[in-house]
Each structure stands twice: as structure tokens, then as C-alpha cells.
């Protein structure tokens, strides 16, 4: 008997009064054995979280939300349980770890209290026993010094430790099935690898089933036994991990693979972005939901909805052309090479250091300093991309803040095109304000929600006395792949990827020469990330832009960087041309970073012609 067997699961949400309910999960079948890991993959909005929540009865209650189909956990049907019956299942049979550990732990209760509560919800026991169980769970989650964590609060832990605490909380009542919803998306690469490894061995040790939800195919290989690919609320391909990654039969799976940057891929290679966006659940096409974006679609795709066809050995795919073995042609286009190494230097950090004061004591006096940047020298050449790699807290953002005049270095100089950035005269200041722009990770926070796109774009231009006529604004939007209609809308009307395009358009408005991209694509889905990375490459070619590209994702670095600088504890430990660093990393830390980069699919090999 399988640990979990989901048959024809469908979840619908009631719309506003007068609207039809919308089906966001439809006809999903899954199964899982104890000790096995199933990865559920798909772009955001494809229904992964809703599917997971329905295994715990955590979707909103009816009539807001209706669930049909069958979910057998350990042979027991759970669809249709009442709230009290669900309480017995949650935590003790099925448990869940959520995406953002900072939000998932209660800030006002100690880690120990929260874990002990989770245990005592299912097994009556003394406080002392519950404490012991909490320590045991923390230890299983490989939390350093588990005993000492009991009295700590979430804010006293680092991101990775918070996720360990959240995992300990989930497994404390010894569930049979653990669901981890994007458990590492919010974490650093180094920590990501550890957490993934720990989850894997937990399953083996505790003989627990694991459902790993992710939008990154990169983490699937090496961590999952089987994969289920979801698109628009449906399961479109499923099978053993090696089969699905090695011989994907559904064009959507192939597209996802092609859009995923790879550490072992060719350098500075154009990614194959998936055009368009997943269909709105209210306007799903009648035929194949992927049809509007499918590069190999034929006519009947728009009228006939494909069913999943069994391809043997548990591999199945939903595509009308599955027998013909559809294959999307990856356009193996290398990005133009750009100016050679040794091109004219545009920006230069020369032995710069930066420290932030720490305050404490009775009078809030400065009691010490955090040395964020320590004696860093680095240069960015005109028209080239320098990737700044390192864990969070390694000083990447602090370094760029000095170039952006948000902080003054304690020591050393920052030069931009011959201008001393710390002491520009009035003309030089204007040059700096125009030439150096920045795009941040979170396009939600960096665009003022009360301004229309027109104002957002025109504002910096007006300040610098540039022409802001309609044609100019439309041209800017076209450059980032948006149309003129966007001008009159507010940022909230756009998706994450589109907002990032608007942020880029705003940065481009002043015709800069250097753009600092601070984790600019980290929050985006792979498909969208590929689009934005391609856009940045195109803009570089057209305008000869230089990028200072901050990221923690080495696969992304591979696809964009001319040069790489690896930072750790405020220092650059290794810097040089990308090719050299990937092929022959000199510093141990670089080597370990490369080794920890999420394992990437071994196939299909994209041609490098």
C-alpha cells in the first residue's frame, strides 16, 4: 500500500459573488511510498501549494473552496474530514514546511515552546518529556546545539537555522509524510545544499515520504526519486527523476529545462525563455493549456485537451504529440562576446573598506564596528558584466552602496570614469546620477505603487531635463518588451517579471553606462528569469552597458558573467575572467561554492554550436 495515493484531485475557489468558481487544481494524480521523495515542479501559480495544502485540509473552508477526488493517506481517505479529524492528521501523519521560515515561526514564542506544542497536540506528555522530544527533533534537523535553541526566538537565528527549526517543528510529532513547499527558495546557496541534504537523509532515516515542491528543476536532480510537473493546475508529466529530466516528453518540461541556467552549461549562453505567461485560471484555453506558449503546437492542440499517456515504467506525459517525441529546438545562441578583457575601466574600487557602527549600553554609544567590506579592489570595464558572488552578509551589497553613494568608504577610493565618487562636484554628481543605475531584487518594493508607469519612467528623466514625450516613453517600454498600454497602469497590475522589466526600463531611462543588478532575477521563476536575463544581454549589446551583477546563484552567473569576483567576510577571495574561475578555481572557498551549487540535470545536452 502506498503511503499516499491522490486520485483525480480537484480544487476550486469560489469567485466574487456572481462569478463562477475557478478550478485551480484539476485531475491531479500522485502516489508516494514511504522513504521516497517526489518533486512537484512548476511555475508559480501552477497549483503546487494548493495541492499540498489540500493534503492537510488547510485550504479555506467551503463554500470558499471545494475539494473533490480522493486522497488516501496510509489507506485512509482524508478528503471530507471535519476540522477535528483533520487536527489529528496534521502534524502526526502529514506535516508541512513552508517557504519563508522567517514568517512561518511565531516571533513571540520560543522555538522550544512551538515544537513542544506540536508534539503535545498529539501525544499527552509532561513538559519535560515534550522538551526532550523538541531537542530530539532539532537534533534530527541537524540544528547545532539543539538544547540551547529551546529558549531562543526565531529572530535570534539565521535564515538557515530558522528553516531547521521549522523542519524540526514539522517532524516533531513523527509524521509519515512531510511536504516541503519551496523550503530553500529564501536561503543562501550554501545553506540550500545543506538543507536539501538533511531533508533527504531525514526521509531515509525516519522512513518518511517527502514531497518537495519547487520551481527550480535544478534542485530536482540528486534530491528526488520521482518528479511531477504541474502546469495550469494539471499534472502534465510525471515519472522517475532521471527519465523526466533526461528524456522529457512534454514540451513544457523541455522548455523549463531549457530555461534553467546550469553551472555545467556553456558560458554566456542565451537561455531559452518560455514566451508569455501561464494562462489565467479563469481563461484557460479549451485545448492544451500550454498551447499558447508551445513552440511545437499543431492545430488540434487548441481544440483537444491532451490526457496523460502512459509511456511505461511509470513515465507519463500529457501532450498530443507524445508519440512523435516532440522536441523544442533550443536556439544555441551564444551571447555576443562583448569587449575583450582589458577594455577601458569604467568603475574602480581601490582598497575600499566600510564598517557600520554597533551601538549599545546605557547611552547607546558606539561600542564596536561591523566590518562589512575590508580592503576590496575591483574594477568594472565598459560593456562587460562583473558578477559579484557570495553568501548573504558577505558584503556584496555594501560594496555597491559605496558606488551608488549610499555609503562613504572609511578608507580607499571609488572612481567612476575618472570621478572620485565620494567627492563629486556638481557636474560630476549629475553625471553619476545619470550614468550609474540600480535594479533591486524586489520589484514590488522598489516601484512606488501610487505612481503610474508613465510617472515612474518620466520622473527621473524630468529631473535630468530629458525629453519625456510619449514616443520616448513608448520606446523605453518596447526596449524591455512591454507595450504602450502599460503607461497608464499602476505597478500592481503587473506580474513579478513585468515589474522587473519596468524597473529596468526606469533604470534605462537616463541612458546609463553601468547598471548594478542586486539579486535582480533571484525572486523570479526560471522561465521569467530567463526572459529577464536575455533582456539584460540584449540591452548590453545594444547600448554597450556594463553590469555589476550581484547574485548568489552560480548557475545564473555562468550564463551572464564575463568576470567573477567571489566575496567572503567582506573580502574578495578570488577574481578573474569567468572561464578561468569555473575551470580552475584557485581558492578553496570558490571550489566549495561551485561544489555546492545545486546539482543540475545531466541531460539533455544543449548543443553549443
Amino acid at each position: 500500500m502506498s503511503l499516499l495515493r491522490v486520485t483525480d484531485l480537484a480544487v476550486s475557489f469560489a469567485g466574487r459573488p456572481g462569478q463562477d468558481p475557478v478550478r485551480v487544481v484539476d485531475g491531479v494524480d500522485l502516489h508516494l511510498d514511504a522513504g521516497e521523495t517526489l518533486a512537484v515542479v512548476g511555475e508559480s501559480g501552477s497549483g503546487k501549494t494548493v495541492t499540498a495544502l489540500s493534503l492537510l485540509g488547510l485550504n479555506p473552508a467551503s463554500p470558499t473552496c471545494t475539494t473533490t477526488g480522493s486522497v488516501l493517506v496510509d489507506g485512509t481517505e482524508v478528503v471530507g474530514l471535519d476540522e477535528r479529524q483533520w487536527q489529528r492528521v496534521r502534524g502526526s501523519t502529514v506535516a508541512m514546511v513552508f517557504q519563508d521560515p522567517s514568517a512561518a515561526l511565531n516571533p513571540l514564542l520560543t522555538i522550544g515552546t512551538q515544537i513542544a506544542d506540536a508534539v503535545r497536540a498529539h501525544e499527552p506528555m509532561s513538559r519535560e518529556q515534550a522538551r526532550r522530544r523538541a531537542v530530539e527533533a532539532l537534533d534530527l534537523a541537524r540544528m547545532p546545539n539543539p538544547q540551547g535553541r529551546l529558549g531562543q526566538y526565531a529572530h535570534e537565528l539565521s535564515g538557515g537555522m530558522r528553516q531547521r527549526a521549522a523542519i524540526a517543528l514539522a517532524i516533531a510529532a513523527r509524521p509519515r509524510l512531510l511536504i516541503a513547499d519551496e523550503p530553500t527558495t529564501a536561503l543562501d546557496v550554501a545553506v540550500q545544499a545543506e538543507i536539501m541534504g538533511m531533508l533527504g537523509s531525514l526521509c531515509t532515516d525516519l522512513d518518511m515520504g517527502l514531497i518537495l515542491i519547487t520551481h527550480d528543476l535544478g534542485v530536482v536532480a540528486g534530491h528526488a526519486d520521482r518528479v511531477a510537473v504541474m502546469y495550469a493546475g494539471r499534472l502534465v508529466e510525471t515519472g522517475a527523476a532521471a527519465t523526466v529530466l533526461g528524456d522529457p516528453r512534454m514540451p513544457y518540461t523541455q522548455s523549463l529545462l531549457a530555461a534553467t541556467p546550469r553551472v555545467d552549461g556553456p558560458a554566456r549562453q542565451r537561455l531559452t525563455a518560455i514566451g508569455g505567461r501561464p494562462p489565467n485560471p479563469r481563461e484557460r484555453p479549451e485545448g492544451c493549456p500550454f498551447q499558447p506558449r508551445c513552440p511545437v503546437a499543431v492545430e488540434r492542440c487548441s481544440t483537444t485537451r491532451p490526457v496523460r499517456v502512459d509511456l511505461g515504467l511509470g513515465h507519463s506525459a500529457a501532450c498530443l504529440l507524445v508519440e512523435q517525441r516532440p522536441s523544442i529546438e533550443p536556439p544555441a545562441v551564444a551571447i555576443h562576446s562583448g569587449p575583450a578583457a582589458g577594455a577601458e575601466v569604467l568603475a574602480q574600487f581601490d582598497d575600499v573598506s566600510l564598517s557600520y557602527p554597533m551601538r549599545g549600553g546605557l547611552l547607546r554609544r558606539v561600542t564596536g564596528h561591523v566590518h562589512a567590506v575590508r580592503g576590496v579592489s575591483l574594477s568594472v570595464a565598459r560593456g562587460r558584466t562583473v558578477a559579484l558572488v557570495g553568501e548573504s552578509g558577505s558584503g556584496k551589497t555594501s560594496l555597491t552602496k559605496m558606488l551608488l553613494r549610499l555609503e562613504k568608504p572609511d578608507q580607499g577610493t571609488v572612481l567612476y570614469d575618472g570621478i572620485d565618487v565620494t567627492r563629486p562636484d556638481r557636474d560630476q554628481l549629475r553625471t553619476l546620477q545619470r550614468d550609474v543605475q540600480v535594479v533591486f531584487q524586489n520589484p514590488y518594493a522598489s516601484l512606488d505603487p501610487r505612481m503610474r508607469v508613465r510617472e515612474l519612467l518620466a520622473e527621473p528623466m524630468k529631473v535630468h531635463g530629458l525629453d519625456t514625450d510619449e514616443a520616448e516613453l513608448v520606446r523605453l517600454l518596447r526596449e524591455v518588451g512591454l507595450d504602450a498600454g502599460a503607461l497608464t497602469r499602476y505597478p500592481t497590475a503587473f506580474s513579478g517579471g513585468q515589474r522587473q522589466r519596468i524597473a529596468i526600463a526606469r533604470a534605462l531611462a537616463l541612458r546609463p553606462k553601468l547598471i548594478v543588478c542586486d539579486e535582480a532575477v533571484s525572486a523570479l521563476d526560471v522561465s521569467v528569469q530567463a526572459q529577464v536575463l536575455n533582456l539584460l544581454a540584449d540591452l548590453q549589446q545594444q547600448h554597450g552597458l556594463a553590469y555589476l551583477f550581484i547574485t548568489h546563484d552560480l548557475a545564473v552567473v555562468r550564463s551572464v558573467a564575463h568576470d567573477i569576483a567571489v566575496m567572503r567576510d567582506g573580502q574578495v577571495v578570488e577574481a578573474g575572467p569567468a572561464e578561468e574561475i569555473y575551470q580552475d578555481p584557485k581558492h578553496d572557498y570558490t571550489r566549495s561554492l561551485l561544489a555546492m551549487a545545486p546539482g543540475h540535470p545531466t541531460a539533455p545536452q544543449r548543443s553549443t554550436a
Partner: protein
Amino acid sequence: MTAYLIRRLAQLVPVLIVVSMVLFALLRLLPGDPTTEILGQEASEADRAALRADLGLDDPVWLQYLNWTGGALTGDLGRSWLTNEPVGAVILDRLPATVELGLIAIVLTVLIGLPAGIIAAVRSRTKTDAVMTTASVFALSTPHFYLAALLILVFGLWLRILPPSGYVPFTEDPLQNLLHMVLPAITIGSTIIAVIMRQTRGSLLAALGEDYVRTARASGLAQRRIVTVYALRNAVVPVVTVAALQIGALMSATVVTEAVFTVPGMGTLIVNAIFSRDLPIVQGAVLVVVVFVLLVNLLADLVYARLDPRITY
């Protein structure tokens, strides 16, 4: 913690100095001659001059201020210009009624406002919620003097179940004392009860929507424990802030309410002293009120830091 407390108390000193200066200056700007109030319209110019000299009113204002603060520092707030009683004794005489009123209002708030907010949040978007929310709108939009008059009319004059006004000291007759306190306490409490109810409802609803509540549900915790421990604690933090901000409003409500119900408390004391230009009384009483408000705010910050471990002293 102790260091924090010392620092916060030290910060109160400049605030008190400024407030006392402003208070002193404003009162000297009041129109009218105090000697007229004290000696009456018919008093001779000579008598007035003698009185002025006697009260120190001929000294420069800064010297008067220094004399007053110098006394205040040693616990001597001066004497009433009208009755010559020591200001401190007068205040001590009036304080119990006001403190009692305030305490009852706070107890009512905790007993009514908090639970009502919790019920409204747990049953949000039901009839119960709608009724409570509407009631709170009424409570917030009814002026205190109007509510006071209404209560006196209904309970004191028509139903005759509660005394319409007046005051009996607790030491004399505890039951009568409490009966006399009911209507004024409801009047004063009406606003703050409604404010606390709405704030509790809002912040509890927000907390119930947080990820950590979903985590608690996903671990199989019972709804009761989720609401009372996992959500309410977080929801109470902003309620404390709002409650502290309401202290000023509570004070002004007290002044009006004491006047309407003729309760001999600080409110009536201040109002009467202003009308009779008995400035030492006004100064002393207002100063006590200011110190009280500052201490309540400090207390709120301490409670806040105690509830939320992310706040460091």
C-alpha cells in the same frame, strides 16, 4: 532592563522641564487678574497690591517659575490662592475619586473591550461581528457629555436604579461608592472600550492570517490554543500601544464626566481652579496628570518589550 529603565526615566526629566515651563507660561497668559477672583470686584487697589506682593506676583515670571519648581522638587507645590490650603493636600484629597474612576474604566475595558474584539475577530463577517462593530461606531461617535446626560436620564431619573450624580467615599460606604461610580465609569470607558475592541479585532484578524498561524494549524494544534496563544499574543502588542495613546483622551473624558456627575476628582478640581484663577492648584494638578501620562507611556513600552522579544532595551 534596569539600565533601560534608568535611561527612560532620565529622558523624562527634560520633558517635564519643558512641560512645566509651557504650563507656567500659559497660565500667566490667562486673561483676568487673580486678585479680582480672590478679593472680589470691590476690593481696593491697595489691598490688591498687598496681595500681589504677598503671592509673589510682582516678581519677574522666571523667578516665580524658579520658586515654584524649587518647591515642587522638595514636594511643596505651594498653597491655594483661594483657601490657602497646601496644594499637595488638596490633590491628595481629590486623587482617590479619579483614580478609582480610571481603574474601573480600565477594568471595564479589559472585561468588555478585549473579549468583544476577540469574539468579533473569531466570528468575523457574521451577525455577531456586525452588531459589535456597529455598537463600537456608536460608542465612538457619541460625545461624553451627551452619553453622560443620556445615562443619567435613563438609569438615574427614569429607572431610578443608580444614583444620577454625586460621590460617596469608599471608606464611608463601599456599596454606595461603587453604585455612584458605575455611570461615570461607563461614560469614561465608552470610547476606550470601543477603541480597544476595534483594535483587538483588527490586529487579531491580521495575526490569524499570518504564516505562523498556518504553521500552528499544520501541526495539528487546536483552534482554541491557536487563537489564545499563537495569535492573541501577537495581536495584543499593537493594542497596548493604542491603549497608551488613549490615555490623553481618557483624561479629557474624565474632566467632562466628573463635571457632569459632580464627582469631586482631579477633573473638577482643575476646572474649578481655572475658573477661579487659582493657579497653584491648576499647576500642581496638571503636573500630576502629566507625570501620570508619562509614566503610563513608559509602562506601555515596558509591557511592549516584555511581550515582544525582538525589542531590545
